[in-house]
C-alpha cells in the first residue's frame, strides 16, 4: 500500500517536475551563472569550453589558475555604479503599481456585479470580460496606437477641447499616460477573473444576516465582502503587477524615449548590444525585485486574512 502510494506520487508529479527542471530551473540557473561571466568577442558569452587547437578536442578552458579571466563581479558593480539602472527599476515599479491599482478599481465593481447577478447571466458576463483577452496581445496594444495617435478621433477631440480652453495641444502617444492606459487595458481581465472566482463563492446569507443585524451597505462591504475577497485581490494584484513590471512591448511601441522600462533594457542587452552577462545581471535584479514583492504581498495577504477571521 505504502509502495503503491509513493509510486502513484511519482507517476503524477514526475513528468511535470522533469519538464520544468529541464526547461525552466536549469536555464534559470545557467542565466544566473552567466551574470558572473564575460561577454564573448562577438556578443553572447565568452565560452568556457572550446576546441583546443593542439588536440582538436573540446576542452574546459577554465581552471583553478585562471578563473579570474572567466569569472567576475564587474557586471554587478556596473549595475550599482550608475544610478540610471536603479532609477529605471523604480520607474518600472511605479508604472506597475499604478496599473495594478487602476485595474483593481475598475475590476472590483464589475466582478462583484457579475458574481451577484442571476446565475444564468454570469457565464455570459464573464465571457464578455474574457473575450477581449482572447484577442492577441499586440492587437490590443495596436488598437490604442490608433486611438491615441495624433490623427485619431479621440486625440483630436481632446486637443480641440483643450484648444477651447486655450491650452496647447498635448501628445497622447509616446507618454507615461499611454503606457499606463495600455498596461491597464492588457492586464484588466487578470484582475477580474480571480476576483470573480472569489466573490462568486461568498455566502450571500452572511450579507443578509449582517443586514438583519442592522449593518449598512458600506459596513457589509467593509466588514464582510472585502476581507473575504482579499485572497482574490492579492491573486489579481500579483497577476497584474508582475507581468506589468517586466513588460517591454508596450513601452517599446507606445512609450517613446521617456517611457522605457526594465524590460526594454534587458531586451537591449540580449538582442541589440548583445552583452549577455550584463543582461543576466538585470534579469537577476528583476527576479529579486519580483520575489521581494511577491513575498511581501503574501505576508500582508496572510496577515489580513487572519485578522479577518
Amino acid at each position, binding site marked *: 500500500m505504502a509502495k503503491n502510494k509513493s509510486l502513484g506520487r511519482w507517476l503524477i508529479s514526475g513528468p511535470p517536475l522533469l*519538464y520544468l527542471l529541464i526547461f525552466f530551473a536549469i536555464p534559470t540557473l545557467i542565466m544566473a551563472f552567466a551574470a558572473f561571466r564575460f561577454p564573448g568577442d562577438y556578443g553572447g*558569452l565568452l565560452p568556457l569550453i572550446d576546441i583546443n587547437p593542439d588536440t582538436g578536442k573540446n576542452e574546459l578552458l577554465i581552471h583553478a589558475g585562471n578563473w579570474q579571466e572567466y569569472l567576475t563581479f564587474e557586471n554587478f558593480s556596473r549595475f550599482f555604479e550608475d544610478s540610471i539602472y536603479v532609477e529605471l527599476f523604480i520607474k518600472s515599479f511605479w508604472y506597475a503599481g499604478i496599473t495594478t491599482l487602476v485595474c483593481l478599481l475598475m475590476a472590483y465593481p464589475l466582478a462583484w456585479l457579475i458574481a451577484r447577478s442571476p446565475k444564468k447571466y454570469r*457565464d455570459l458576463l464573464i465571457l464578455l470580460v474574457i473575450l477581449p483577452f482572447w484577442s*492577441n496581445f499586440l492587437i490590443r496594444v495596436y*488598437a490604442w496606437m490608433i486611438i491615441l495617435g495624433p490623427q485619431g478621433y479621440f486625440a483630436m477631440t481632446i486637443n480641440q477641447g483643450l484648444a477651447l480652453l486655450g491650452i496647447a495641444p498635448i501628445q497622447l502617444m509616446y507618454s507615461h499616460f499611454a503606457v499606463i492606459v495600455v498596461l491597464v*487595458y492588457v492586464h484588466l481581465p487578470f484582475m477580474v477573473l480571480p476576483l470573480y472566482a472569489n466573490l462568486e463563492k461568498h455566502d450571500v446569507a452572511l450579507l443578509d444576516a449582517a443586514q438583519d443585524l442592522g449593518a449598512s451597505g458600506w459596513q457589509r462591504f467593509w466588514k464582510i465582502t472585502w476581507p473575504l475577497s482579499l485572497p482574490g485581490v492579492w491573486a489579481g494584484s500579483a497577476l497584474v503587477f508582475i507581468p506589468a513590471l517586466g513588460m517591454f512591448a508596450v513601452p517599446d511601441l507606445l512609450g517613446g524615449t521617456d517611457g522605457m522600462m526594465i524590460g526594454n533594457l534587458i531586451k537591449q542587452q*540580449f538582442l541589440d548590444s548583445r552583452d549577455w552577462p550584463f543582461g543576466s545581471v538585470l534579469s537577476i535584479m528583476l527576479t529579486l525585485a*519580483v520575489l521581494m514583492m511577491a513575498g511581501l504581498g503574501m505576508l500582508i495577504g496572510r496577515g489580513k486574512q487572519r485578522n479577518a477571521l
Partner: protein
Amino acid sequence: MHSKQSKWLWAAAIFVYGFLYVPLIIVVAYSFNDSKLNAEWVGFTFKWYGLLIHNEQMLVAARNSLIIAVVTSFCATVLGTLAGLAMHKYKLRVLPILVLTPIAIPEILMGVALLIFFVMLNMTLGMVSVTLAHIAFCIGFVAIVVRSRLQGMDEALVEAARDLGATPIQAFRLVTMPLIMPGIIAGALMAFTLSIDDFVITFFTAGAGASTLPLQIYSMIRIAVTPEVNAISTLLMLLTLTLILIASKVAPSALRAK
C-alpha cells in the same frame, strides 16, 4: 438604497465593458476603411483583406502559430493537470515552486533564460524551441486552474464514494474527474490562447527560424500603422471568437462558473 447602489455598479460595469470593447471595435471598423490612414472614414472596402491573402509571410506565420499552439496546448494540459493533481494530493516542496515561479516572474526572464539555454545547446532557434518554451510557461496556468477546481471540490464527495465501496481509482474516475473536467478544459483553452498570443517568450526563442503571427504583427506595427494590420487583427479575433464558441458548445460546463 439597494437600487441606487446597483445603478452605480451598472454604470461602472458598462464603462469597463466599453473600455474593453471600443478599442477592438475601432480596429475592426478601420479594417474596412478605404484609406491608408487610420483616421478619417473614407469608404467601405475589402482591399486590405485581399492584400493579406497574397502576403506569403503572413500565411507562413499563421500556420506556424497554429501548429505551435496546438502542440503546446496538448502537452501543457497533460503535464499541467498532473501537476495540479500532484499539488493538491501530496505535500510537495519542489514541484509547486517550479510550477508557480514561471507565472510569478515576468515573461521576459524566462525568455532570456531559454535563449541562453538553447544557444548553449547549439539548438537552432525555431519552431521546436518556441514550442518547448511555450509548454514550459503554460504548465503552471493549467495546474492552477485544475488545482483551484480541486480545492473548490467538496472532499466529502470522494469520502462518500469511498465509504460506499469505491476504490481510490474508481473514486477518482467517477467523482473527481468529472468534477474537475471543466478545469482541465478551461486550462487547455487557456494554454492555447497563451501560446497563440505569446509575444515575449516567442520573441526571444524564435530566432530567425520561425515567425509567428505576433512576431509578424510586431514587425509591421513598429514600422507603420497600416490597415493591413487591422485586417489580420480582425481575422485573428474572428478565429479566437469561433474557437471559444466551439469550446463552449463542446464543454458548456467549462465556461459555466459552477
